[in-house]
Protein backbone atom coordinates (compact mmCIF):
# COMPACT_ATOMS: atom_id res chain seq x y z
CA UNK A 1 0.00 0.00 0.00
CA UNK A 2 1.38 3.42 -0.99
CA UNK A 3 1.56 6.27 1.58
CA UNK A 4 -1.26 8.07 -0.25
CA UNK A 5 -3.50 5.00 -0.15
CA UNK A 6 -2.63 4.51 3.53
CA UNK A 7 -3.67 8.11 4.24
CA UNK A 8 -7.03 7.66 2.50
CA UNK A 9 -7.55 4.29 4.19
CA UNK A 10 -6.92 5.89 7.59
CA UNK A 11 -9.59 8.53 6.95
CA UNK A 12 -12.23 6.27 5.42
CA UNK A 13 -12.02 3.91 8.42
CA UNK A 14 -13.48 6.61 10.66
CA UNK A 15 -17.17 5.87 11.38
CA UNK A 16 -19.51 7.91 9.18
CA UNK A 17 -16.92 8.84 6.56
CA UNK A 18 -18.28 8.12 3.07
CA UNK A 19 -15.09 8.81 1.23
CA UNK A 20 -11.83 10.68 1.11
CA UNK A 21 -9.67 12.13 -1.60
CA UNK A 22 -6.53 14.13 -2.12
CA UNK A 23 -6.82 17.00 -4.58
CA UNK A 24 -4.52 19.63 -5.96
CA UNK A 25 -5.64 23.12 -5.01
CA UNK A 26 -3.82 24.72 -7.95
CA UNK A 27 -5.72 22.84 -10.66
CA UNK A 28 -8.61 21.24 -8.75
CA UNK A 29 -7.84 17.75 -10.02
CA UNK A 30 -8.03 14.46 -8.10
CA UNK A 31 -4.67 13.06 -7.02
CA UNK A 32 -6.09 9.96 -5.29
CA UNK A 33 -9.53 8.94 -4.06
CA UNK A 34 -11.33 6.33 -2.04
CA UNK A 35 -15.05 7.05 -2.32
CA UNK A 36 -18.34 5.26 -1.95
CA UNK A 37 -20.47 4.80 -5.08
CA UNK A 38 -22.50 7.87 -5.94
CA UNK A 39 -19.95 10.43 -4.77
CA UNK A 40 -18.52 12.47 -7.62
CA UNK A 41 -14.86 12.77 -6.70
CA UNK A 42 -14.06 15.00 -9.66
CA UNK A 43 -16.67 17.57 -8.57
CA UNK A 44 -15.59 17.38 -4.94
CA UNK A 45 -11.94 17.90 -5.90
CA UNK A 46 -12.65 20.79 -8.26
CA UNK A 47 -15.01 22.66 -5.95
CA UNK A 48 -13.13 22.02 -2.70
CA UNK A 49 -9.79 22.84 -4.35
CA UNK A 50 -11.25 26.10 -5.59
CA UNK A 51 -12.73 26.92 -2.19
CA UNK A 52 -9.48 26.22 -0.35
CA UNK A 53 -7.38 28.29 -2.73
CA UNK A 54 -9.88 31.20 -2.63
CA UNK A 55 -9.99 31.11 1.17
CA UNK A 56 -6.20 31.10 1.30
CA UNK A 57 -6.11 34.17 -0.96
CA UNK A 58 -8.82 35.84 1.13
CA UNK A 59 -6.85 35.19 4.32
CA UNK A 60 -3.69 36.48 2.69
CA UNK A 61 -5.54 39.62 1.59
CA UNK A 62 -6.81 40.12 5.13
CA UNK A 63 -3.32 39.66 6.53
CA UNK A 64 -4.17 36.56 8.53
CA UNK A 65 -2.86 33.01 8.34
CA UNK A 66 -4.61 30.64 5.90
CA UNK A 67 -7.17 28.21 7.35
CA UNK A 68 -5.87 24.82 8.48
CA UNK A 69 -9.24 23.08 8.49
CA UNK A 70 -12.59 23.64 6.75
CA UNK A 71 -15.95 22.23 7.76
CA UNK A 72 -18.83 22.75 5.31
CA UNK A 73 -21.99 21.49 6.98
CA UNK A 74 -24.99 20.46 4.89
CA UNK A 75 -28.35 18.86 5.64
CA UNK A 76 -27.20 15.33 4.82
CA UNK A 77 -23.60 15.53 5.90
CA UNK A 78 -20.47 17.58 5.66
CA UNK A 79 -17.39 18.20 3.60
CA UNK A 80 -14.18 18.41 5.59
CA UNK A 81 -10.95 19.71 4.12
CA UNK A 82 -7.45 19.93 5.51
CA UNK A 83 -4.92 21.76 3.32
CA UNK A 84 -1.47 20.18 3.31
CA UNK A 85 1.84 21.14 1.79
CA UNK A 86 2.69 21.33 -1.93
CA UNK A 87 -0.77 22.68 -2.84
CA UNK A 88 -2.51 19.47 -1.80
CA UNK A 89 -5.71 19.22 0.21
CA UNK A 90 -7.15 16.20 1.99
CA UNK A 91 -10.94 16.09 1.61
CA UNK A 92 -13.46 13.88 3.38
CA UNK A 93 -17.16 13.48 2.62
CA UNK A 94 -18.96 12.51 5.83
CA UNK A 95 -22.51 11.63 6.81
CA UNK A 96 -24.55 13.40 9.50
CA UNK A 97 -23.67 10.71 12.06
CA UNK A 98 -19.91 10.89 11.55
CA UNK A 99 -17.47 11.30 14.39
CA UNK A 100 -16.37 14.81 13.39
CA UNK A 101 -13.92 15.27 16.25
CA UNK A 102 -12.00 12.13 15.38
CA UNK A 103 -12.17 12.94 11.66
CA UNK A 104 -10.74 16.40 12.32
CA UNK A 105 -7.85 15.06 14.40
CA UNK A 106 -6.97 12.33 11.90
CA UNK A 107 -7.22 14.67 8.92
CA UNK A 108 -5.03 17.37 10.47
CA UNK A 109 -2.40 14.77 11.29
CA UNK A 110 -2.61 13.13 7.85
CA UNK A 111 -2.58 16.47 5.99
CA UNK A 112 0.67 17.38 7.74
CA UNK A 113 2.26 14.33 6.17
CA UNK A 114 0.97 14.92 2.62
CA UNK A 115 3.56 15.42 -0.11
Amino acid sequence: MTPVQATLDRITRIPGVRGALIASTSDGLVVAEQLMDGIDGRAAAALTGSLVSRLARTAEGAGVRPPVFLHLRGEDGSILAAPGIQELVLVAVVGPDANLGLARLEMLDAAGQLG
Partner: protein
Amino acid sequence: MRALEPWVEAPLQSFLAESSARLTLLMTTSGQVVAQHGFGRSLDVMTAAALGAGIVASTEELARLMGAPRFEALVHHGSRQSCMLAAFATPRGRWIGLVVFGQETSAGIVQLFFDQMVQQLADAAPREQPQVPMLAENFEHELDASLRALFGR
Protein backbone atom coordinates in the same frame (compact mmCIF):
# COMPACT_ATOMS: atom_id res chain seq x y z
CA MET B 1 -21.08 36.08 -25.79
CA ARG B 2 -22.56 35.38 -29.21
CA ALA B 3 -23.98 32.19 -30.68
CA LEU B 4 -25.22 31.35 -34.16
CA GLU B 5 -28.18 29.41 -32.75
CA PRO B 6 -30.24 30.58 -29.75
CA TRP B 7 -30.41 27.18 -28.00
CA VAL B 8 -26.63 27.27 -27.50
CA GLU B 9 -26.77 30.52 -25.51
CA ALA B 10 -28.16 29.34 -22.15
CA PRO B 11 -25.76 26.38 -21.68
CA LEU B 12 -22.80 28.52 -22.76
CA GLN B 13 -23.84 31.41 -20.52
CA SER B 14 -24.14 29.04 -17.56
CA PHE B 15 -20.69 27.60 -18.31
CA LEU B 16 -19.13 31.07 -18.54
CA ALA B 17 -20.71 32.15 -15.25
CA GLU B 18 -19.59 29.05 -13.36
CA SER B 19 -16.15 28.50 -14.85
CA SER B 20 -14.87 32.12 -15.09
CA ALA B 21 -13.37 31.25 -18.47
CA ARG B 22 -11.76 34.19 -20.27
CA LEU B 23 -12.27 32.99 -23.85
CA THR B 24 -14.52 30.25 -25.17
CA LEU B 25 -15.06 29.01 -28.69
CA LEU B 26 -17.50 26.32 -29.75
CA MET B 27 -17.03 24.91 -33.24
CA THR B 28 -17.64 21.90 -35.39
CA THR B 29 -14.82 19.45 -36.11
CA SER B 30 -14.42 21.13 -39.52
CA GLY B 31 -13.68 24.44 -37.78
CA GLN B 32 -17.05 26.12 -38.39
CA VAL B 33 -17.66 28.42 -35.42
CA VAL B 34 -20.92 27.95 -33.50
CA ALA B 35 -20.44 30.39 -30.62
CA GLN B 36 -17.76 32.57 -29.10
CA HIS B 37 -17.10 34.53 -25.95
CA GLY B 38 -14.31 37.00 -25.30
CA PHE B 39 -12.79 37.28 -28.77
CA GLY B 40 -12.50 40.83 -30.08
CA ARG B 41 -11.59 40.19 -33.71
CA SER B 42 -13.00 37.82 -36.30
CA LEU B 43 -9.50 37.00 -37.48
CA ASP B 44 -8.62 35.65 -34.01
CA VAL B 45 -11.74 33.47 -34.06
CA MET B 46 -10.93 32.07 -37.49
CA THR B 47 -7.33 31.34 -36.46
CA ALA B 48 -8.29 29.74 -33.14
CA ALA B 49 -11.01 27.63 -34.80
CA ALA B 50 -8.67 26.39 -37.51
CA LEU B 51 -5.88 25.60 -35.04
CA GLY B 52 -8.25 23.98 -32.54
CA ALA B 53 -9.86 21.76 -35.17
CA GLY B 54 -6.41 20.81 -36.44
CA ILE B 55 -5.14 19.90 -32.98
CA VAL B 56 -8.20 17.75 -32.25
CA ALA B 57 -7.85 15.98 -35.60
CA SER B 58 -4.15 15.35 -34.87
CA THR B 59 -4.74 13.99 -31.36
CA GLU B 60 -7.58 11.76 -32.55
CA GLU B 61 -5.32 10.33 -35.24
CA LEU B 62 -2.58 9.80 -32.63
CA ALA B 63 -5.08 7.98 -30.43
CA ARG B 64 -6.11 5.82 -33.39
CA LEU B 65 -2.46 4.95 -34.12
CA MET B 66 -1.97 4.01 -30.46
CA GLY B 67 -5.08 1.86 -30.57
CA ALA B 68 -6.53 3.98 -27.78
CA PRO B 69 -9.98 5.50 -27.52
CA ARG B 70 -10.27 9.22 -28.26
CA PHE B 71 -8.64 11.63 -25.83
CA GLU B 72 -11.34 13.41 -23.86
CA ALA B 73 -9.58 16.68 -23.35
CA LEU B 74 -6.25 18.35 -23.88
CA VAL B 75 -5.11 20.93 -21.32
CA HIS B 76 -2.11 23.20 -21.78
CA HIS B 77 -1.08 24.61 -18.41
CA GLY B 78 0.53 28.02 -18.64
CA SER B 79 1.99 30.20 -15.92
CA ARG B 80 -0.68 32.92 -16.34
CA GLN B 81 -3.22 31.41 -18.72
CA SER B 82 -4.18 27.85 -19.56
CA CYS B 83 -6.08 26.37 -22.46
CA MET B 84 -8.42 23.38 -22.68
CA LEU B 85 -9.48 21.76 -25.90
CA ALA B 86 -12.14 19.05 -25.87
CA ALA B 87 -14.26 17.35 -28.52
CA PHE B 88 -17.73 16.10 -27.64
CA ALA B 89 -20.81 14.60 -29.25
CA THR B 90 -23.98 16.63 -29.76
CA PRO B 91 -27.24 15.81 -31.58
CA ARG B 92 -25.87 18.14 -34.31
CA GLY B 93 -22.65 16.14 -34.74
CA ARG B 94 -19.25 16.29 -33.10
CA TRP B 95 -18.24 19.70 -31.75
CA ILE B 96 -15.10 21.12 -30.20
CA GLY B 97 -14.76 23.47 -27.24
CA LEU B 98 -11.72 25.71 -26.86
CA VAL B 99 -11.49 27.39 -23.44
CA VAL B 100 -8.82 29.81 -22.24
CA PHE B 101 -8.77 30.41 -18.49
CA GLY B 102 -6.58 32.17 -15.97
CA GLN B 103 -5.54 31.81 -12.35
CA GLU B 104 -8.96 32.96 -11.10
CA THR B 105 -10.25 29.45 -11.81
CA SER B 106 -8.77 25.97 -12.22
CA ALA B 107 -8.61 23.15 -14.75
CA GLY B 108 -10.83 21.03 -12.50
CA ILE B 109 -13.55 23.69 -12.32
CA VAL B 110 -13.40 24.34 -16.07
CA GLN B 111 -13.63 20.63 -16.90
CA LEU B 112 -16.44 20.06 -14.41
CA PHE B 113 -18.66 22.81 -15.79
CA PHE B 114 -17.65 22.08 -19.38
CA ASP B 115 -19.06 18.56 -18.93
CA GLN B 116 -22.26 20.10 -17.53
CA MET B 117 -22.51 22.37 -20.57
CA VAL B 118 -22.08 19.39 -22.91
CA GLN B 119 -25.00 17.67 -21.17
CA GLN B 120 -27.12 20.84 -21.32
CA LEU B 121 -26.35 21.27 -25.02
CA ALA B 122 -27.40 17.68 -25.68
CA ASP B 123 -30.68 18.33 -23.85
CA ALA B 124 -31.31 21.69 -25.52
CA ALA B 125 -30.49 20.79 -29.12
CA PRO B 126 -33.57 20.78 -31.35
CA ARG B 127 -34.02 17.38 -32.96
CA GLU B 128 -36.14 18.34 -35.93
CA GLN B 129 -33.51 20.10 -38.05
CA PRO B 130 -31.27 17.70 -39.99
CA GLN B 131 -27.59 18.49 -40.26
CA VAL B 132 -26.85 20.19 -43.61
CA PRO B 133 -23.54 19.16 -45.20
CA MET B 134 -21.19 22.08 -45.89
CA LEU B 135 -20.49 22.38 -49.62
CA ALA B 136 -17.19 23.79 -50.83
CA GLU B 137 -18.88 26.39 -53.06
CA ASN B 138 -20.86 27.73 -50.08
CA PHE B 139 -18.00 27.68 -47.59
CA GLU B 140 -16.80 31.27 -47.98
CA HIS B 141 -20.33 32.67 -47.93
CA GLU B 142 -21.21 30.58 -44.83
CA LEU B 143 -18.00 31.66 -43.10
CA ASP B 144 -18.66 35.34 -43.75
CA ALA B 145 -22.25 35.02 -42.55
CA SER B 146 -21.16 33.19 -39.39
CA LEU B 147 -18.51 35.76 -38.51
CA ARG B 148 -20.95 38.64 -39.11
CA ALA B 149 -23.43 36.96 -36.76
CA LEU B 150 -20.77 36.25 -34.13
CA PHE B 151 -19.46 39.80 -34.11
CA GLY B 152 -22.73 41.59 -34.75
CA ARG B 153 -21.53 43.30 -37.94
